[in-house]
């Protein structure tokens, strides 16, 4: 697609994520047994109540864009990320994605403490959607990035929490993806390693990967992403330049 300086050009940028009228409601159950349900019914108390985590959220993200999802705790950012990754399914509206999606979402979910670092790399990379060939090809990079080559054949349960996170993060960041979902990256490891992770994420972005980032480190996220979507109580309240989005959020 030829690039022209004319913004009104007919050529549309290639989309990566389309969210249209997304809504997600959680049902909160107040009773946890048959007995409680019966008693609640007799007393005419509500058995459950619902909670709108997301309400009519629409946006489009182009391939190669980096977008920060901003909002305070409970605003629905993580729910949105889970809808994009497919872990949760929307109640209304739909999400569409193009290309392979993988998340740096609470890394290490697929790790087994009784397996060695090496076995865990294979298992976790396969969970994130990689084939055996791809893992073989990237294995050395993963180990090198994690800086724990010495312990790679040790069972993961003997790792320190820092080593564990390094390995888990290293696997996740080396998966072959088109859309990378990042949740709270700055909770990983010590400062030098955090910087290294951030550099790696920037590099992936420079290579044309699409990024969707959730973080409470507003300064970092504003610099990393060019666009910010501010969410409040499940609704999009601002969608635009990232520094402006952060400024709006701070003003709230």
């Amino acid at each position, binding site marked *: 697609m030829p690039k022209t300086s004319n913004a009104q050009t007919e050529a549309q940028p290639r*989309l990566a994520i389309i969210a249209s009228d997304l809504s997600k409601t959680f049902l909160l159950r107040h009773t946890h047994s048959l007995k409680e349900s019966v008693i609640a019914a007799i007393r005419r108390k509500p058995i459950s109540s619902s909670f709108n985590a997301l309400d009519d959220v629409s946006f489009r993200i182009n391939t190669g864009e980096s977008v920060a999802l901003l909002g305070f705790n409970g605003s629905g950012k993580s729910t949105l990320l889970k809808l994009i990754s497919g*872990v949760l399914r929307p109640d209304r509206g739909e999400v569409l994605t193009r290309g392979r999606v993988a998340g740096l979402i609470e890394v290490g979910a697929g790790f087994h403490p009784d397996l060695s670092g090496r*076995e865990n790399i294979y298992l976790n990379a396969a969970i994130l959607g990689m084939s055996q060939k791809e893992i073989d090809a990237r294995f050395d990079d993963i180990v090198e990035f994690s800086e724990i080559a010495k312990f790679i054949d040790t069972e993961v349960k003997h790792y320190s929490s820092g080593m564990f996170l390094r390995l888990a993060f290293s696997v996740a960041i080396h998966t072959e993806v088109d859309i990378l979902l990042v949740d709270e990256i700055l909770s990983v490891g010590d400062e030098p390693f955090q910087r290294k992770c951030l550099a790696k994420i920037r590099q992936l972005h420079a290579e044309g990967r699409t990024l969707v980032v959730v973080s409470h480190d507003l300064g970092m996220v504003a610099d990393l992403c060019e666009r910010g979507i501010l969410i409040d109580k499940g609704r999009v309240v601002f969608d635009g330049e990232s520094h402006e989005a952060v400024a709006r959020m701070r003003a709230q």
Partner: protein
Amino acid sequence: MTQIAPVPDLDGFVRPGQGAGLIDVFRRRYLLSLLVRKEVQVRYRGSVLGWMWSYVKPITQFLVFFVALGVFLQLNGSIPNYPVYLFSGLVVINLFSEAFSNGTKSLVDNAPLIKKIYLPRELFPVSSTLVAFINFLPQALVLAVVCVLTGWHPNLVQVLGILLGVLIIVLLAMGLSLFFGSINVSFRDAQNFVELILLVATWASPVLYQWTMVEKILPDWLMVIYQLNPVTAAVELLHAGFWYPTTEGQIPMPTGLWFYGLCALVTASVLLVVGQLVFRRLERRFAQDL
């Protein structure tokens, strides 16, 4: 920025979280093989006997039943080569119990993964069934060795019958695990109910006793229902393959063995389809209910 541009080219877009069910499991068979290997590796980690446990358990179970039923209740006298008869039924029940019970619990056991990463969730019940199958192999080997020692001379049809029996159990356990496993996510009653089913299953098939004893008591129509139980069909197919060729044929196998075997195969396949459909329906809520 929220104004919607003209309808874009939707080529290549997918709805995240909407897989193709068991077909996806096949597509991601490399991951499946890693999950199975992990289970197999981890199961007896930290135990001195290690994989010996998968021999110790069935042998102990066998000895208990053999002493109680074979010796004390004297089935040893009425059923020729009773030890082989008993063991060839027990391996079927063990395979079924392990696959079904672990498969039902597999989703709850893998909750952290299901809540954070999308992958075809059918992987978990399917891998439980495969692990149970791998666990079944050493038992089948022991059985085959004992059969050879007691003069085993099966023909091809009987060997095919054994394979059919195992196939029935694998499909049945997979289908039932998908069904009860997906219900178990919201209602943990399911796993207790499954324990109940398994308790009954051991006695509802001619594992410890013989089919002729049932036939003497049950009316004909009830006997048909008894034999339509897919587990019964599989047990009898293994009896016909392992035990019958080691005897002189004093006690015949029931008639219509293949008929009931094929009925069981159809039943198991239908249950697999039903299990998959229910699973897909309930799957939407897995990540939020776990």
